[in-house]
C-alpha cells in the first residue's frame, strides 16, 4: 500500500496484449483507406448525420471517461488528501493517454486533418467548438507536463533535456495542476454546450440549455468510478495488491457526486417535461438504460455500505456508472440527433467500429507499456507478492 510508484515487473507480451495488437493493426489498415479515399470510404456519415461514433465515443465519451485525471488531482493535490496518492498517478496516466486518443480521433474525423492548426489562426470566439478545441489542446499539454516527473524519473538521466525541463517544471507544478482542473471544468461543460446549437434537431429527451451543467456534473461523477474500474482491471490483470483501502472511501465521494448529478439531471428533465416523450422508441430505451441502469441503480448500490466494501460489488457499481456516462454521450451526440430530412438512420460502418475499437486497444496497450516501463503503479515486486 505504502509502496512508492515503480515500474511493474510483469511479462509484457501476454495473449491479451497480442489481441490488442491485432485490433490496432486492423485499425491501422482502415486508417490508410480513410486517408487515401476520404471519410466516405470508411464511414456511414452523410449530410443528415455529419457526426458519428468517432465524435460520440472516441471524443465525447473519451473526454468524459478521462475525468479521473482532474478529479483525483483535485482530491490528492489541491485538497491535499495524500492518502489517495496511490491512485492519482495511474489516473493521470489514463487521462494523458485518453486525451491523446481524443486528439487523434479528432484528427481522423476532420475532413481536412492537415488543416487542424487553422483553428488557432482563424479564431471564431463565438464558436463552442473553438473553445473546446483550445481547452482540450492546452489540457493535453498540461497533462503531459504533469506526467513529466514519472517519465523523467526513468529517462531523465539519459535524456539530459528531459531532466532539465523536469526540474524547471517541478517548481511550478502546483500551477499546472490547478490549470488542469480549471481547463477540465471548462471543456467538460462546453462539450455539452456543443449540441445546444441544434435545439430543433436534438431529440427533446436530451435537449436542454443546461446540457453543459449536466456534462460537467456527470464528468465529475464518473471520475472516481473510472478510477475504481481501471484499478480493478489493472490489479487483476497485473496481479497487484488490492487498492481497496483507497477505493472504499473514494466510493463514498463517488456516491455523493453521482447523487448530485442525478438529482440535477432528473430535476431538469421533469421540469422540462421531457418525460412526456418517453415511449416505446429506441431512443426512449436508450435513455432509460442511461438513467436507470447507469445512474439510479449504481447510486443505490453505492449507498449500501456492504456493496462499497465488497470488491466485486464496488467494481460492478463503478462499471455501471461508467457505462451510464458512455451511453449518455453516445445518446446526446448520436442517438439524439434527429435531422429533419434524414433518408435513413445512421448506423456506424464497419470502418468506424474498427477504428474506434483500435483506439481503445491502443489506449490499453499504451497503458500497459507505460506501467511496465515507468513508475506509475504502487506495486510490489513479483517475488514479494508470491
Amino acid at each position, binding site marked *: 500500500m505504502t509502496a512508492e510508484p515503480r515500474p511493474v515487473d510483469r511479462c509484457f507480451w501476454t495473449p491479451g496484449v497480442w489481441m490488442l495488437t491485432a485490433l490496432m493493426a486492423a485499425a491501422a489498415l482502415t486508417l490508410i483507406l480513410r486517408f487515401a479515399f476520404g471519410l466516405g470510404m470508411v464511414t456511414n456519415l452523410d449530410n443528415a448525420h455529419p457526426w458519428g461514433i468517432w465524435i460520440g465515443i472516441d471524443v465525447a465519451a473519451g473526454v468524459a471517461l478521462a475525468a479521473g485525471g482532474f478529479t483525483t488531482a483535485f482530491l490528492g493535490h489541491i485538497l491535499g488528501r495524500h492518502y489517495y496518492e496511490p491512485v492519482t498517478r495511474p489516473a493521470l496516466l489514463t487521462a494523458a493517454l485518453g486525451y491523446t486518443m481524443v486528439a487523434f480521433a479528432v484528427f481522423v474525423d476532420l475532413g481536412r486533418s492537415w488543416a487542424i492548426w487553422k483553428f488557432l489562426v482563424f*479564431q471564431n470566439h463565438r464558436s463552442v467548438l473553438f473553445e473546446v478545441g483550445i481547452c482540450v489542446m492546452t489540457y493535453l499539454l498540461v497533462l503531459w507536463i504533469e506526467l513529466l516527473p514519472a517519465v523523467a524519473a526513468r529517462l531523465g538521466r539519459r535524456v539530459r533535456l528531459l531532466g532539465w525541463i523536469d526540474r524547471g517544471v517541478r517548481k511550478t507544478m*502546483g500551477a499546472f495542476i490547478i490549470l488542469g482542473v480549471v481547463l477540465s471544468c471548462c471543456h467538460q461543460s462546453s462539450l455539452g454546450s456543443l449540441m445546444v446549437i441544434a435545439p430543433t434537431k436534438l431529440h427533446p429527451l436530451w435537449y436542454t440549455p443546461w446540457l453543459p451543467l449536466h456534462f460537467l456534473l456527470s464528468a465529475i461523477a464518473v471520475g472516481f468510478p473510472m478510477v475504481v474500474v481501471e484499478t480493478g482491471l489493472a490489479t487483476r490483470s497485473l496481479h497487484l495488491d488490492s487498492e481497496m483501502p483507497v477505493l472504499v472511501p473514494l466510493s463514498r465521494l463517488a456516491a455523493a457526486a453521482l447523487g448530485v448529478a442525478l438529482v440535477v439531471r432528473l430535476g431538469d428533465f421533469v421540469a422540462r417535461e421531457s418525460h412526456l416523450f418517453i415511449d416505446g422508441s429506441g431512443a426512449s430505451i436508450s435513455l432509460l438504460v442511461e438513467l436507470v441502469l447507469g445512474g439510479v441503480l449504481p447510486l443505490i448500490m453505492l449507498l449500501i455500505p456492504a456493496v462499497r466494501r465488497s470488491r466485486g460489488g464496488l467494481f460492478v457499481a463503478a462499471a455501471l456508472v461508467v457505462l451510464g456516462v458512455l451511453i449518455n454521450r453516445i445518446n446526446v451526440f448520436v442517438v439524439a440527433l434527429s435531422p429533419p430530412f434524414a433518408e435513413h438512420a445512421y448506423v456506424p460502418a464497419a470502418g468506424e467500429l474498427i477504428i474506434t475499437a483500435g483506439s481503445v486497444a491502443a489506449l490499453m496497450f499504451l497503458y500497459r507499456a507505460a506501467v511496465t516501463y515507468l513508475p506509475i503503479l504502487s506495486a510490489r515486486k513479483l517475488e514479494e507478492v508470491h
Partner: protein
Amino acid sequence: MITSRRSFLQVATTVAGASTLPVAARAWESRAPDNPFACLVDLTRCIGCRKCEEACNRVNDLPAPAQSFEDLRTLKSERRPTTTAYTVINRYTTGVLGSGHRQQPIYVKVQCMHCQDPACASACPTGAMAKQANGAVTYDPSQCIGCRYCLIACPFQIPAYEYERALTPRVRKCTFCFERLEVGKLPACAAICPADAIVFGRRRQLLVEAKRRIRERPARYVSHIYGEHEVGGTSWLYLSGVPFPHLAFPNLPSQAIPRPTESIQHALFHNLWSPAALFALLAAVMAVTRRNDDERPGTKGGES
C-alpha cells in the same frame, strides 16, 4: 417531413428552455445586417420548370446532372441540395384542385436560407462560414478544417459535405451568388425565373411586397411569410397557398438559433472571468492545504 406534434412540442420546449437560461441571455445581441439583399419566392407562381436549377448549375460550374434538367421524372422523389446541386425543386401535391379537377402540384425551391443570424457561422470554429454585410452567408474553403459542425448546426439541413474527397473536401451550399451580387448582378436563379416566382431585392422592401400580396389576394395565400421570423429571420422569404408544414418546411422557433450557446459562452467566458476565478479559488485552497501540511511534519508527500 417532420411530424407536426413532435416538432411543436420540440419548439415549445426549446423556447421554454432558452428563456430559463441564466443571467446573460439578455446580453445577447443580433449581428444581423440591416436590410440586406433578399429573395422572395412565391410558391403560387412557380411552375416547376427547373430553369433556376440549371442556371445555378451553370454559374457555379457544377457537373452536369445524371438526368437532364428537362427530365420531369426527377420530380418524383423529394430531393435535398447536394454537393453538386445547390438548389433543387421539389413537387408536392396537397389536395388543392386546379383546373379540370386535377390535383394541382406545388413546387418548392430549396436552397440555403441565408439566415440573418446563421447557426452555421456561429458554430464554425474558424469563421470559414460567415454572414456578409450584403446578406450572403459565404464559405471559405481555405479556412475550413472539415469539422462539419456547420452541418450539425444548420436547422434547415442545407450544407452538404464532400465525403468522397480525400484531401480537400469542401462544404457545399448556395452562395447567394455572392460574386454576382458584388458586381450588381442578380442571383442567377432569380434572373432566369420565367414566372417571376423569385423576386430579388432588399429584405425590408420584399417583406412589404409580400404583405401586400397577402393583403390583396387573401384567398391565394396563407398569411405567413416563411423566413420573416423563423430562426430570427432569413434572407430568403417564401409565400405559399398551403400551410408551410405541408411542404416540408421545418417548423422553427423565432429565436435566433445561436442565441443560447452564444449567451452561455459569453456568460461564462467573457474576459475569461470564470476560469480566472476558479483558478484563484483553487490556488487559495491549495495554499491552505500546503500550509497545513507544513505545520504537521511527516504528513507531507507527493511530488507536487
